[in-house]
């Protein structure tokens, strides 16, 4: 007697059913909540709520802070990404761990750590307060919290893009008498640009959705630090319509970003893999 073979038609059908079934369960788990949001907020409500002060204020603040955080990430992150992509130096591994840490750290811990550093009694905060600069519970603090949580995503993507630029082009530039700086601006940076832009997209989405670090470090002050995710949390207890509207807006913004990146030929995590498909 032989045991039923793996190639038995009934067995194959069963396996296929299990795979499809599990995939369907997961898809439903992800889709249902989002669909419920859509059902919950009719378009008319959405349009009406967007104009209301709590939603309008949070939306405007979120846009300003997340774009500021993204701009800072580009300014501060690009040199770092370039260093990591092109140089070997002692302590590089430690630096890489440091830069990856915010990706896995609980955001509240990040917020608390920021408070320890930049709070009124903090390591740097005391010196800053002498100069009359205060970060906690300010809009600038919200930007700092978002930057802290989102800049690693930009660096990973930008670094992968800069690394993936083939040395053939860099060599060609050198033989055409181009200095290193000129080669960076005219060759390496433009060729890595798709990944850098995708990295900015990732970074912006992360900054836009930041909650834990912001509320811990910058508090929940209307018009100053109450960004959309914080407003959702607050309105959940006061005004479900506003909470749903804000949530839906966040879903729409994230979806638009993802679709735009796909249209541009960049999957969300494609930039992270760029180095592997170098050349």
């Amino acid at each position, binding site marked *: 007697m032989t045991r039923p073979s793996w190639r038995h038609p009934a067995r194959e059908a069963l396996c296929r059913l299990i795979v499809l079934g599990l995939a369907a369960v997961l898809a439903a788990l992800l889709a249902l909540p989002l669909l419920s949001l859509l059902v919950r907020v009719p378009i008319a409500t959405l349009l009406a709520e967007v104009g209301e002060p709590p939603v309008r204020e949070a939306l405007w603040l979120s846009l300003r802070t997340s774009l500021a955080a993204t701009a800072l990430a580009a300014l501060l992150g690009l040199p770092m990404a370039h260093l990591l992509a092109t140089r070997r130096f002692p302590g590089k591994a430690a630096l890489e761990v440091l830069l990856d840490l915010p990706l896995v750290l609980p955001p509240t811990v990040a917020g608390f750590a920021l408070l320890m550093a930049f709070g009124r009694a903090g390591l740097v905060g005391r010196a800053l307060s002498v100069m009359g600069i205060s970060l906690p519970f300010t809009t600038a603090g919200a930007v700092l919290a978002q930057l802290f949580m989102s800049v690693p995503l930009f660096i990973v993507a930008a670094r992968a893009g800069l690394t993936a630029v*083939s040395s*053939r*082009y860099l*060599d*060609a*530039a*050198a*033989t*055409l*008498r*181009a*200095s290193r700086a*000129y080669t960076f601006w*005219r*060759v390496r940076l*433009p*060729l890595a640009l798709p990944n850098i832009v995708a990295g900015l997209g990732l970074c912006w989405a992360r900054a836009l959705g930041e909650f834990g670090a912001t509320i811990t470090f910058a508090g929940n002050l209307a018009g100053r630090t109450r960004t959309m995710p914080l407003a959702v949390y607050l309105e959940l207890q006061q005004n479900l319509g506003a909470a749903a509207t804000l949530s839906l807006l966040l879903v729409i913004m994230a979806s638009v970003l993802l679709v735009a990146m796909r249209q541009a030929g960049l999957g969300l995590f494609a930039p992270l893999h760029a180095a592997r498909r170098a050349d």
Partner: protein
Amino acid sequence: MLRAELTKQLGGFSLDCTIEAEPGRTLVLVGESGSGKTTVLRLLAGLLQPDAGHIASGGQVWCDTRTGKLSPPEDRPIGYVPQDYALFPHLSVLENVAFGLRATGAHRREAHAQARDVIRRFGIEALAGRTPAQLSGGQQQRVALARALALEPEVLLLDEPLAALDAETRNTVRGELRRLLASLPCVTVFVTHAPLEALVFGDRIAVLEHGRVAQVGDQMTLLRQPRSRYVATLVGLNLLPGRVRARDPGGAVTLETPRGLITVMDAAPGDQLFVAVSPEQVFLSLEPPEGSARNVFVGAVEELVPEPPFGDRIRVVLGPDPPFFVEITAAAARQLQLAVGRRVYAAFKATSVAAYA
């Protein structure tokens, strides 16, 4: 005048060679893949650093490992065309050609005007606005040359400039490139694995084998007196190392070769000589030959290859090692009923052998 003495260790490969090239002339470096041709070009360009060596061009020292002098690529007056051209994919043809001019400080407008002149001379002005992805292989090659020559380099380095082209394009581009190189005032170093290209382009030809220069000379020297098996195979000669055993007062010289004793009528002085036998001057027979041929080898047929264009002549490869090539007519091959494995006698006259140092 470009002169370079270079040694470089790369993994298990070692390069040790000296090359010289003159302005207005083309030096071809020919060799199999892995012989170190591209390494030499990259060392000349400064993209690699020699372990020890000295490079000087036009009175300027580019590299001297004894004094520690090492100019980076951007400080060397070179034009470099890599095998895949490496045109900047995000820049137009015009911007590619203008790249070096702008990198050396020319303003955009001025650089573009100058680049436009260059591409006009190359007959590719119509392509100015295209990106490299929109060009054919032949067009890319011209853009790469135009880009490398826009800065009027002292030394032009070409790495297999025809290898990326399809066979048909290669034939037309070969002639154009030959005329272009002949008109240039700069030193040209041209790397190729193709013997035909070496013969077409080389004012001087250096044969690289395993990182060493096996032979340097003009086309005729290489064709008539190859000094390495690689070159001999390229030009279609049998080449055997020979040690002189006896010199007859009448002029005949007997040499010992891996194939047996060979008698020649005219030999250069010296004990160690190269012996070259043209495959067309060898006769095959199934029985030991009678007659005037003084040199006879016995061998088994290993391969029968019809020769282009019509297959009227057959190239017969005789074993055992080293292979010995014989070229006979198809009719003769039929008559002898030649087949792989068949034992034959190969005979040639003492007067049809060249022996040189």
